[in-house]
């Protein structure tokens, strides 16, 4: 896990300089760490589920409910007040989720490959900042502890490398996490993928996958499932481009009942109000007398 050795000095430097802005880390999975006056307020990475994924994928809230809350909050990406007001999560729970997502993103970046990093001053406000900001010293200590813990396991797993498969039927009762991982492990998903699918932190899932590999509940497939390929019977032919049809020569006298083929439009279609006639079908029938009454009322001659 080499990313940590490159990321640690970059994070420490931002803390020492009292940096305000974003530290953008390129690599696999890479990510962004947001600083305010040298303290870390948020971090996100494609390698770790963010607060929204943790809430949605864990089943604490449905996608429809989430969309409703975001709309109620005026389109914000992290509708804290609405989540609390509707009883989906407590204020303390949401704070914990944000801190967990921050630490998890830094772990994922550190466990991966760090190619480069750069500081960006013009940082937009992160959508789910932590209320109690983190010092870089504490964040680095925690990250180093996590990386060492994963490496010390009897069957060390990289969050983005092994793609485990379940082994037979387990004999002993399973924890909810083990059950979830056995359900979703398909030989295609890494610990990171399983973390997203189950709505749990990537560190937790990585450790559990390593334990389950050691306990022979999971195994690493020797070969990935094959890519299924077949050549289409007619080969791969270029798409037939749609062109306006050329004007047809004047036909011999044809029966007038046959409709003409409409030409392929080159411009956006224009809709004529009432063209479909649907309003005539759906609207209740109104008598002419009703409209006369309306005009009389408007002209002051009703009654």
């Amino acid at each position, binding site marked *: 896990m080499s990313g940590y050795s490159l990321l640690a000095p970059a994070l420490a430097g931002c803390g020492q300089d009292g940096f305000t802005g974003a530290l953008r880390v390129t690599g696999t*999975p890479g990510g962004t760490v947001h600083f305010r006056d040298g303290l870390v307020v948020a971090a996100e990475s494609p*390698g770790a589920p*963010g607060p929204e994924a943790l809430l949605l994928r864990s089943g604490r809230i449905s996608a429809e409910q989430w969309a409703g809350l975001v709309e109620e909050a005026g389109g914000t990406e992290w509708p804290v007040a609405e989540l609390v007001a509707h009883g989906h999560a407590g204020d303390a729970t949401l704070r914990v989720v944000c801190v967990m997502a921050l630490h998890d993103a830094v772990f994922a970046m550190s466990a991966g490959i760090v190619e480069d990093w750069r500081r960006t001053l013009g940082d937009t406000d992160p959508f789910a900042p932590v209320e109690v900001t983190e010092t870089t010293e504490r964040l680095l200590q925690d990250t180093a502890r996590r990386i060492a813990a994963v490496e010390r396991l009897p069957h060390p797993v990289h969050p983005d490398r092994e793609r485990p498969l379940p082994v037979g039927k387990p004999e002993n009762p399973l924890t909810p996490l083990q059950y979830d991982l056995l359900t979703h492990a398909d030989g295609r998903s890494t610990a*990171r993928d399983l973390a997203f699918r189950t709505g749990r932190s990537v560190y937790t899932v990585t450790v559990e996958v390593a334990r389950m590999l050691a306990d022979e509940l999971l195994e690493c497939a020797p070969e990935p499932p094959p890519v299924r390929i077949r050549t289409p019977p007619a080969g791969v*032919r*270029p798409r037939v481009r749609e062109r306006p049809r050329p004007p047809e020569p004047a036909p011999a006298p044809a029966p007038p009942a046959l409709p003409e083929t409409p030409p392929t439009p080159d*411009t956006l279609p224009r809709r004529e109000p009432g063209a479909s006639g649907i309003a005539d079908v759906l609207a209740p029938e109104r008598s002419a007398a009703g409209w006369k009454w309306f005009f009389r009322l408007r002209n002051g001659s009703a009654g």
Partner: protein
Amino acid sequence: MNHEALAREMRGLRDQVTGLTDTAVGTADGLLIAADTADCIEPEGLAALAAAGLGLARRTAHAAQRGTLRRTVAYGSQGVTALYAVGDSALMVVLGDEGMDLDQLHRAATGAVRRIETILTSPHKATEGV
């Protein structure tokens, strides 16, 4: 068509882009050519839907005078479906979870699409499935 080379490109894209979960390649009229997809996804239907979606997006871009279609991306609450035209004859479907970095995908897919187009149009004998 070189099956090994096509499988390598699809696998390579998945290894390169964090969060990319599935890929499929189909003809422009919706016939499946290759699938690197999970069992829960029906690749034939996906290829057919992708052809319809890409065709609609292409016509919309043309009618709205937005130039040549580059790609179309559909966002769901649990991830992303990205459709790329592979030249004039084929298409590629990419599925990713909500963590997938789309900028990284687009950078990686640009080269992959070009190479897949070459593979699809080059004559080569190979066995079914790789």
